[in-house]
Each structure stands twice: as structure tokens, then as C-alpha cells.
């Protein structure tokens, strides 16, 4: 395996196509690792791919056709985390082309669809494999020699589900960001687009890449091509892979994969996932995640469209401090033993949050945990039906334990204001539901709901700085509000950023600025960036992080004056823009349970029973 240090952005065009199936070079370490993994990685339907080496008219231009893999040598990351260069050259050979995908009418409809699915993912797989210089080994042969060729296909259509996007279609390839989750045995767990079954070969190869690099005592972190960045993240028994054409930095993409991992943990806990895979390496985790795909889909959509994830801060709805205080007081008074967090949400933004004193002495509530909760609420319409009582883990708070969440909308049927109460006691439904009744009553008495309904986010014009189009401001913790929940504030995106495409374009610019500011090799404090249709200025100090967007004609001097004005405005408005002093309450923990709230529920994670399913 050669290793190479390329400079960022150096991309070598490499043509890659399916391997000639006949070739059979001597096995090396990769072949060995493949054969070790073989059984889990390439279930029957997959093997068929390699058997159907058919022609395809267009050149093999799959996701990663032009590839250069490089070490992000600019990154001052730990030495062991080198990226192994995965690069190879292959000349096109007619044998490695595939025409099934383009001519499904050749066969019976069902069969053809199945075949083309697999043909395609096979192609992607092979493309990736080619880079790893392992194309001639094992795989091509495997298909040929498999006696299970036909058996695999027949079962196939039965799996067709709501996620039945055609993975052979160009539209599938053109998705901006693919996310795959697989187990260490190469079993598919989740794919953002298309069904996991159709992609099992793709995922098998991803695992092959991971384990191949691993066998050389190394860790694969990313693969760069001109079009795409492939980022790998290994967390315990799970492997997460992102294939993105979004031009985000590797670090940002890895951060997003981490959110996906945390969302899975929030449903199953880390402890039970490790336990499951300790007992059964090739367990199909989709059994346990069934019904949660929407939650992961929703998360990935939010990650793309909501800067909270990029900034790792929560966005709270601007609210007159008197109203926010009165809401906090309502929550503070409706308590019951073992209640640890009371959260009020409107339109996916925080209104207020009240925390148990002793619990946050130990651990702070991380923005990421709040994001996961907000996503859970946003992604499931089921909450609108009634009151929900569900176990949920806050992975950054404690990845191995469950909280019990009570979730209910306060304003049916509109369902915009949502109450979330977290308790450590799984038996506490009735007493927690009683808290909701009290909150509801108090809110009726104070007419809070109609006041909340009138609340708007704000317009950038309120700042009164011409040329300023949009901004994001994230203050850092300062001693006087120690253990404050990290927040940020940002106005509505208005014209010219009102269409979805323009919003995304602005977010992409912010992501670019963010990646420059937070570059591991060359972090910056201040960037003035003249883009095509706007000018951006990002500034990070020990007190805050600020991203601003100006009209393209602004001058540097103007922008700096504008920022001074903006900072002054934010200072003046901060009581309205932020939850300044998150209120607390004290709920005497039930003596039978160990104290310290969520940290305590250790015994609970052991009896959540997933083992009994094996």
C-alpha cells in the first residue's frame, strides 16, 4: 500500500472501471481480509453483482470515477490518523461495462429492476475497490463461483419498501450527500437514499476499505475525488460513511456523521449496541431501528438546512424577557420527583429550558442533545396524537442510560408549541403528565399561548445597518453564566435568500467560512471573503463567533463599522435574543434511586432487554 502526501486540492484524474473478472492475482493482505469478511459482507444477492459482468454503453462514471485520494497533509492531526492513499489506474476494458442499467427491458420487469439495482451498486463498489487496488482479487471471482447466484435475486423484490429509490438512476448518484451506516461485519444499517438491501454490496466494499486499511494498523479517514469527498467514521461496532459533493470540509462532514451516530445512540444507547454486537457480530441492527428511518432522514435534512448543527449551538426564539421569565416560572413550578429537564419548544426553536440543579452540576446539557430532541419531535407526526412517554438517551449527557421523555403539544390541533419533560423515573408517567396539566392551566390563566403565537423571529432590518443581509452570532460561555447552554442568534433569511436554493447557497458560504476559521492546520481569526454575489466577513474572538453576510458592494471599512453597530445592537437585545440565565429547579430525587438524576440510571441500561432479542 503506497502512501502519499498530496496537497489539498490536487486531484488526479484516474479512470477506473470494473475489473476484468477473470484476472486472479495472488492474494495479499487485502484478499485475506476480504476472505475473512466474505461471509458477512457479501450476502447472496450481492454476490450476483460480480457474476453479472455485463456491458454498459456509457463510461463508468460513478460517484468516484475521477479519484485522487490524498492525505490531508495540511491537517495537524495525530500521526496515526493518516489517510491511506487509495489510488489506482485501470484502463477501460469492454468486459467491465454494464448495459443492464440502461436497458431494463431486456428482461422481465421485476428481474431487470433487481439486476440493475445491483449492477449499479456493484459498479460503485467496484469503482471504490479499484482505488484500493483490490479489483482483481476475490470479488470478481466470488460472483462467478457463487452457487447462490440465482437464489439471491428471487428474494429481492420482497424487500421493496418506501425507501425504494432506484439506486441505479442518475438521480440517485446526483444526491448532494449520501450517508451510509453499516456494522463492522459489513451489514447495512441505514442509507439516506435507496434501500439498504440494494446497497448491501456497496456497503460491503466500504467495510472492505475500512478493514483493509485497518489491517495495516491504520485508520481510513477520507477519500477525495474531484467531485466527491468520502468520509469515514468508526464508532464502536458501527461504521458511518458520507459521500458528499457539498464541498464541506472533512471535519464538518465527520461532525455530521457523529450526529447520525448520536441519533442512533439516543434510541438504543451505546451500551446496548456494544452488547448486541459483542454477542452477535453479524446482527442486523435494522431490526432495532425499524421505524426510525424517518428520524434519521429528518436529522440529515436538518443538518443540511439548519446552521445550529454547524455552530453546535441552540437557536432560541427571540422573546420579550418578561414573557420568557413567566414561561420559565410556570415550568419551574410544575415539578415532580426525578424530573430533570423541562423544555418548551415552538416551531422547532427553544422558548425556555429549566434544568434540575444537581444534575447540571455534574454534567451540562450539550446543544447536540437538544438538537437530537428537537429532531425527534420534528420528525414524528405521531406526537400530535396524544401524550407520548418514551425512553430516550441523551448521548452526550450519558450515552449508556435512558431518560424517559414526556412529549405533548399544548395547542392541538395546530401543534406548534410542544412541551418536553424528561424524567429519570420510568414509572413517572402519571406524575409527569400531571405537571403538564398544571403547565397547561397556568398558561391558560396567563394567556401564554396566544402570546407565543404572536412571536416572530426577527428581520435583519431591525439592526438598522444597511448592506447587512444576514448574520449568525454565537457568544461563548462567560464566567457569569457558567454552564449556560451554548446558543446562537440569527435573523430570518430574507430576500435574496428566500428560495430554498439561495438559502442553501448562503449556508454553503457560511460552511466555507466556518471551515476556514476552524481549519486544523491554519485556523483564522478573521476572514473577509468577497464571493460572487455577496461579501462575507467571519470573526472569532474569545467572546464570540460571528458570521456576517453583506451586499457585494460593501467596502471593508463599511463592513467593519457595520459589525461594530451589529455587536452593539446584539448587546442591547441580548435579553430578548438569548435565554440569559437558564432557570433551575430542585426535584428531590427518589431515595430508592441513586441521586444525581440521569447519571444514576445505570441498572436501567442493563435491563432494557435487547439481549433477549438475540
Amino acid at each position, binding site marked *: 500500500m503506497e502512501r502519499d502526501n498530496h496537497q489539498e486540492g490536487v486531484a488526479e484524474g484516474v479512470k477506473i472501471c470494473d475489473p476484468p473478472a477473470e484476472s486472479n492475482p495472488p492474494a495479499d493482505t487485502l484478499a485475506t481480509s476480504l476472505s475473512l469478511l466474505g461471509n458477512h459482507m457479501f450476502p447472496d444477492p450481492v454476490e450476483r453483482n460480480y457474476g453479472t459482468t455485463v456491458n454498459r454503453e456509457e463510461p463508468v462514471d460513478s460517484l468516484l470515477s475521477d479519484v485522487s485520494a490524498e492525505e490531508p497533509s495540511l491537517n495537524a492531526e495525530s500521526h496515526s490518523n493518516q489517510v491511506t492513499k487509495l489510488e489506482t489506474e485501470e484502463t477501460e476494458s469492454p468486459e467491465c461495462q454494464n448495459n443492464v442499467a440502461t436497458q431494463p427491458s431486456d428482461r422481465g420487469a421485476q428481474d431487470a429492476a433487481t439486476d440493475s439495482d445491483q449492477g449499479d451498486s456493484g459498479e460503485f463498489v467496484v469503482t471504490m475497490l479499484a482505488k484500493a487496488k483490490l479489483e482483481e482479487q476475490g470479488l470478481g471471482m466470488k460472483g462467478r463461483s457463487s452457487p447462490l447466484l440465482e437464489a439471491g435475486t428471487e428474494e429481492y423484490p420482497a424487500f421493496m419498501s418506501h425507501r425504494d429509490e432506484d439506486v441505479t438512476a442518475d438521480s440517485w448518484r446526483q444526491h448532494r450527500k449520501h450517508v451510509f451506516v453499516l456494522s463492522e461485519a459489513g451489514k447495512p444499517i441505514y442509507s439516506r437514499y435507496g434501500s439498504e438491501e440494494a446497497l448491501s454490496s456497496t456497503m460491503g466494499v466500504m467495510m472492505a476499505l475500512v478493514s483493509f486499511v485497518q489491517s495495516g494498523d491504520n485508520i481510513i479517514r477520507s477519500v477525495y475525488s474531484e467531485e466527491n469527498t468520502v468520509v469515514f467514521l468508526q464508532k464502536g461496532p458501527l461504521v458511518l460513511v458520507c459521500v458528499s459533493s457539498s464541498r464541506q470540509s472533512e471535519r464538518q462532514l465527520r461532525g455530521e456523521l457523529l450526529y447520525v451516530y448520536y441519533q442512533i445512540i439516543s434510541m438504543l444507547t451505546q451500551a446496548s449496541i456494544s452488547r448486541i454486537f459483542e454477542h452477535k457480530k453479524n446482527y442486523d441492527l435494522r431490526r432495532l431501528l425499524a421505524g426510525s428511518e424517518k428520524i434519521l432522514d429528518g436529522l440529515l435534512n436538518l443538518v443540511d438546512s439548519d446552521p445550529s448543527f454547524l455552530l453546535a449551538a441552540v437557536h432560541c426564539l427571540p422573546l420579550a424577557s418578561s414573557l420568557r421569565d413567566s414561561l420559565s416560572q410556570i415550568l419551574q413550578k410544575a415539578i415532580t420527583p426525578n424530573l430533570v429537564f423541562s423544555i418548551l419548544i415552538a416551531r422547532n426553536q427553544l422558548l425556555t429550558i429549566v434544568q434540575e440543579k444537581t444534575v447540571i452540576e455534574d454534567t451540562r446539557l450539550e446543544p447536540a442533545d437538544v438538537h437530537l430532541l428537537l429532531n425527534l419531535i420534528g420528525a414524528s407526526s405521531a406526537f400530535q396524537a396524544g401524550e407520548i412517554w418514551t425512553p430516550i438517551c441523551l448521548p452526550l449527557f450519558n450515552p449508556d442510560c435512558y431518560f424517559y421523555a414526556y412529549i405533548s403539544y399544548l395547542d392541538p390541533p395546530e401543534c406548534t408549541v410542544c412541551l418536553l419533560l424528561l424524567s429519570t423515573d420510568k414509572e413517572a408517567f402519571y406524575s409527569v403528565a400531571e405537571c403538564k396539566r398544571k403547565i397547561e*392551566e397556568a398558561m391558560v390563566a396567563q394567556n401564554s399561548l396566544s402570546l407565543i403565537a404572536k412571536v416572530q423571529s426577527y428581520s435583519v432590518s431591525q439592526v438598522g445597518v444597511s448592506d447587512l443581509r444576514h448574520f449568525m452570532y454565537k457568544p461563548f460561555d462567560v464566567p457569569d453564566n457558567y454552564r449556560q447552554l451554548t446558543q446562537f442568534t440569527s435573523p430570518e433569511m430574507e430576500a435574496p435568500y428566500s428560495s430554498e436554493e439561495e438559502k442553501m447557497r448562503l449556508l454553503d458560504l457560511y460552511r466555507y467560512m466556518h471551515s476556514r476559521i476552524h481549519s486544523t492546520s491554519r485556523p483564522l481569526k478573521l476572514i473577509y471573503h468577497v464571493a460572487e454575489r455577496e461579501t462575507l466577513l467571519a470573526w472569532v474572538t474569545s467572546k464570540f463567533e460571528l458570521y456576517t453576510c453583506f451586499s457585494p458592494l460593501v467596502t471593508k471599512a463599511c463592513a467593519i463599522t457595520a459589525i461594530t453597530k451589529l455587536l452593539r445592537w446584539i448587546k442591547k437585545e441580548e435579553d430578548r435574543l438569548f435565554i440569559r440565565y437558564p432557570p433551575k429547579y430542585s426535584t428531590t430525587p427518589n431515595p430508592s434511586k441513586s441521586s444525581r438524576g440521569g447519571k444514576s440510571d445505570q441498572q436501567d441500561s442493563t435491563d432494557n432487554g435487547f439481549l433477549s432479542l438475540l
Partner: protein
Amino acid sequence: MGENLPRVPRGSQLHSDTLSRPVRTLRVKMVLLGSSGVGKSSLAMRFGKDEFRNTSPTVGCAYLTRVVHLSNVTLRFEIWDTAGQEKYHSVTPLYYRGAHAALLVYDISQRETFIRAQVWLKELENQYTPGSTVIWLVGNKGDLVEDRQVSVQEGQSLANDRGLSFMETSALSGEQISELLLAVAHRVYECMGEQQGGLSDWQETPLVDLHHKDTFSPFASCCKVGP
């Protein structure tokens, strides 16, 4: 079974006159069990609001209430609509413990869900002495006759063998929904309504209590919990 339910704190006599009810209101805990996607939430939605909409998979457990009036008593059904997904199976006992009625729901067009219902039945039977819980076998999606995989006879004979009641419903069309709820209500009341420790009274006092106090001072003592 009633004592297993953490009760809503009972209010003092002071307020009972504000709720002049001609008949007693008894609490009935009813749980819906069955595989993912058989229509438990849709049934619950029919029970609770008499409407049908496409639901997404339930997270944990949803709780709804529905009041049913019988000739001499009012039953307040507390419906626990559990998630059918496997990841929640370990916590499901939390929801069905102490239930007076359990509906084992399957989808008549999916044989596996019928088999799965029998697994649930076994689990219920292991936990309870007969007679403490009224168990109903419910074949849902009665509108999908063309795709039927489980015949009425099969459902009926399983119910007969195991001493369950049986009904086929359609949450989509609303067919047999109110009949089912009424039948469950009658059955539960017959079996345990008059029993010692059977059904507990339900009183709406907490709300009234709070409301009264709030009229005078919004923040006063709404933090008092429990008796």
C-alpha cells in the same frame, strides 16, 4: 390491578360538588399491542378522535383518553398505544402492566403479524392470572379483503382456544370501531367493575383545583404534587 397505576392525586371533598356527576366514572387502562404497522395508532386515533390519518411509527408509547358511557356507569378509557417496533419491546411491560384490557392487534393481510400477536399473547399470559385482564384479538385492516392472509375462522378459532374475544375492524373505514370499544367497555365492567380492587374511580379534581387557585394568584402552589 388498579393499585398498580400511579393515581392522579385525589382532590379533597371541597371540590367534588363542582363536578356533579350522576354516575360514577371509572378508570380503565387499555393497552394496544402488536407488530409494527398493523394499525395500532390508527385504531387509537379512531377511539380517541374518530378520525383517520396516516401516522408515522409511534415513538415509545402514546397515551390518549376516551370516555365511554354505559347505562349506569361512565368508563374513562386510558389508552396506551404502544410502539410495535422491536427496539421498544423491552419497555413495553412498562405500558401494559396493570392494564384492564389488552387489544392484540394484527393485520389480516400480513400473516406474520398474526403469529406475532400470539407471541404477545404468551407474554401477557406469563404475566397475568386469568381474569385480571380482558384480552381482545383484533384483526385490523378489514378493508384489505383482497390481500387477506388470515381468515376470519383462523382468528376466531385462536380466540376460542385461548379464551379471548375476537373482532375484525378497519381503522381506515371506521368499521366495527365503536362496536369494539363498546364491547370492551361492557366486558371490562362486567368482569371487574364491581370487584374489590377492580376499577378505580376517576376524579377530575386536579384540574379544577389548579384552576380555582389560578384565578386568584397564578403562581400560587401549583408546584404541590401528590397527596
